[in-house]
């Protein structure tokens, strides 16, 4: 019984990766990770829906996928706050 159960879970994970969902939904599912999303729909010119091509806690793993997916509209970002809210910026 164990093997089919694991197989089903892998299938479910793969299916969820390939499903077009709102960016907000994706953000809830992949907190504090770098994300590369193929954008399928925009709203006011900003990404609104898409599906996850890759998620990782390592930035470099995601960056390397950008040129491998040319021809697609991609959205690359870190889903989280990289510093505390009391941080001041002087760029």
């Amino acid at each position: 019984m164990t093997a089919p159960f694991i197989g089903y879970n892998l299938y479910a994970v793969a299916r969820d990766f390939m499903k077009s969902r709102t960016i907000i939904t994706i953000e809830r599912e992949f907190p504090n990770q770098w994300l590369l999303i193929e954008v399928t729909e925009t709203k006011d010119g900003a990404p609104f829906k898409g599906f996850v091509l890759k998620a990782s806690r390592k930035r470099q793993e995601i960056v390397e996928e950008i040129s491998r997916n040319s021809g697609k509209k991609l959205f690359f970002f870190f889903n989280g706050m990289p510093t505390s809210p009391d941080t001041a910026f002087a760029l």
Partner: protein
Amino acid sequence: MKFSIPFNQGVFRDFSLFVVSALIENQGRSLYLPMIVDTAASYITVRPDVFEQLGIVPIRKTPLVTASERAEAPLGQVDKVTVGARCFAVNSPVISIPLPAVLPAEGLLGASFLRNFFLSMDYDKGKLELITK
């Protein structure tokens, strides 16, 4: 025409920075990046790894002065940059610098893009608008 530009509400609340999703298109690659609207930056600015992944060819090095250092940065050009539904600029200069890891964005949207528009930033109302010239 005036266009209201969506921006990241969380980053605005925490840091008073306007971070927008800018679509950078170059050499058949199309990439949305969260970018800080930065009127103190001369150029659109991205990190070196993204500069390379977008296939941007460095034309030359340009002197660079930041808040903390003087250096040089590779300068190139991308085919098109779009912010919001209809605000775009073509053949826009872009530089590459290793931005701090804790920056809540992937780059800076500087004057090489903003110069094509009138810009309205209302911090009290939390409103960002680009007006075409």
